[in-house]
């Protein structure tokens, strides 16, 4: 049985529809990441699950019970806020103990639970400090500690790492994953950072304009994006898109006219795309120097040398931006034409509506 399920969930603020009918099942112990560009409704969705926003239509079920009208504490959730939301006038101990104080638990029990949380989060030496004396990472850990002590069924994280600097972020990412392993509880995590989504999630929910674009494991989304939006959102640098027109589709292969770039033949069984304007997608990391099964002549205008990778940026004759990512340090110079190719198997094809064609 699923731990959390959303059924045709909708949310409107006055006239604006923010969440447009979302169906989702989350299994017990799963790490689910909501990802999407800002304004896609992912934070609103999380706040609805938390009980901070009202439900306009549809149902939220936790452990088989509709919780639409229950306050957060009765839903069995705990939330970690983007801004930490620590109580600055209380010590770390009292911050973590706050939910227990609300419950009026005996002092011995509070001591035990706070001690256990502090141990898990390595905050034992910081318990008597104020949040103002802590570093960003420690503050985040205090906020997580406050969520842990309640022993909730579901943890909700609202972009918890976005206020940390890059080095600390990857450190905390690993800590969070370890925490998930240790506690084994269901976690729902909102982020706009697709790297966080890819690295942490059991299941990624890609949201776009209040609707689910695709749900799947990180690798599913990477290898088999359902639509243009997911294809462009997952992966860094972004997938390259080339506009083309289908000349013929005979049920075994599709022949696409890419204008001055040539003609591309892909093995696809769909015949519906015949005559359509389509988009061909190829990831930058699937480009190789020299000839491939299909070869493009490219003149990079900017080249980035990252040591491990070299990234070449260029513009195609049709006006589309095109990025190539290569291992190591090949000799690429900006302004100098070169050939790069890719394998047919790595190509994604999207029809006129932006849906993937197989």
């Amino acid at each position: 049985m699923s731990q959390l399920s959303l059924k045709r969930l909708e949310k409107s603020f006055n006239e604006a529809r923010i969440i447009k009918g979302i169906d989702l099942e989350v299994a017990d112990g799963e790490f689910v990441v909501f990802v999407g560009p800002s304004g896609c409704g992912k934070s609103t969705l999380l706040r609805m699950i938390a009980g901070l926003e009202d439900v306009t239509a549809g149902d939220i079920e936790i452990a088989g019970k509709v919780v639409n009208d229950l306050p957060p504490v009765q839903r069995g959730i705990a939330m970690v806020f983007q801004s930490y939301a620590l109580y600055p006038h209380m010590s770390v101990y009292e911050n973590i103990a706050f939910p227990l104080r609300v419950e009026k638990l005996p002092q011995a029990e509070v001591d035990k639970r706070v001690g256990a949380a502090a141990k898990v989060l390595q905050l034992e030496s910081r318990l008597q400090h104020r949040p103002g004396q802590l570093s960003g990472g420690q503050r985040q850990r205090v906020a997580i500690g406050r969520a842990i002590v309640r022993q909730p069924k579901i943890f909700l994280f609202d972009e918890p790492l976005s206020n940390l600097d890059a080095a600390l972020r990857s450190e905390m990412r690993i800590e969070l994953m370890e925490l998930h392993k240790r506690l084994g509880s269901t976690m729902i995590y909102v982020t706009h950072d697709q790297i966080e989504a890819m690295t942490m999630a059991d299941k990624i929910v890609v949201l776009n304009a209040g609707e689910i674009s695709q749900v799947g494991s990180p690798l599913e989304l990477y290898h088999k994006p359902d639509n243009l939006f997911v294809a462009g959102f997952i992966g860094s640098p972004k997938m390259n898109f080339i506009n083309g027109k289908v000349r013929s589709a005979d049920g075994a292969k599709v022949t696409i006219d890419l204008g001055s770039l040539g003609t591309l033949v892909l093995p696809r069984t769909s015949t519906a795309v015949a005559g359509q304007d389509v988009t061909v997608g190829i990831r930058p990391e699937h480009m190789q120097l020299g000839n491939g099964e299909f070869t493009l002549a490219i003149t990079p205008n900017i080249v980035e040398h990252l040591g491990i990778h070299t990234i070449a940026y260029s513009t195609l004759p049709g006006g589309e931006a095109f990025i190539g990512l290569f291992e190591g340090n090949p000799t690429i110079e900006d302004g100098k034409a070169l050939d790069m190719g890719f394998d047919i198997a790595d190509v994604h094809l999207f029809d006129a509506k932006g849906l993937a064609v197989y």
Partner: protein
Amino acid sequence: MSFHDAKATLPAGANPLAATASSVAELSKPKVKAKARPAKAMIDRYHWYEVAALYAGIAVFLFFVLSPFIEGFLVSLKPLAQLFSTPYSFIPKTWSFDAYVNMWTSVPALGMHIFNSFFISSVVTLIVVAIVVPAAYSFARFNFGGQALLLGMFLAVNMFSGAVLLIPLFRLMRSLGLLNTYFAMIVPGAAFLIPSSIWLLRTYMMRIPRELDEAAWVDGASRLYTLRRVILPLAMPGIVVVAIMTFIGAYAQQFIFALTFNSKTEFMPLPVGLFAFFGKQEVIWNELMAASFVGILPVMIVIIFLQRYLVAGLTAGAVKQ
């Protein structure tokens, strides 16, 4: 490599001072300079004449503000005869604290007046704080119908001075039989001070991050629990400002209410009680001034006491801005 390491590597017998004398001089020079002028950001550095000009400006301003007080204090030290001498001398020729002693006998109720002033202002402050804190919290955090209208009306009330409403208030007090009571001097005073305080504290509370309320709500706290355990401690500097402003405001405005609604000596606050120094023939100016200064004392003590709670930056570390 540090200076000490360099010395240690020199062969025995060699004079390390000679070898390093010049470098020591070079090193120590900027150090001495840094000590002479404490490290300050460029933007905070001034030339001596700029500092002098700043202090001169402050002195002029302070003199302008304080000169009535200075003259008042000097008057309280002079014997009464000297006040009417020509040419008038600002500096007392002979001075004493006699007025501070004699005033208690020439106006026996003076102590009562000072107590009344303090009592009325304190009660007004307590009432205002008790009402303003929950009101400001609800205006800062809840959305309810008529919120903007109510706030606008509070602002409008503030635009009436109490004096305009004295006659209706007097009739009200008379028909309720409340003339010549503390109530008549306390309640209208509190009512006039509440609206502006709600505005002030509401703004202060709006600056406390809403996430703190939400976090407390998610953790199971009720709105009142959140107010008590989270918002009140954080709003303390704002509440203290409201308390100080209310106390001063109540102290200043009690004159007009006491003059109109009260004719009993035992309830009179100091500003009205001072009229007792106005005799039939003459005004005992020096004792009047002395009484005024002694009357201000409780206010100053209260303010000094409350000021300690005006801690800035209490919300540091609550949220990452």
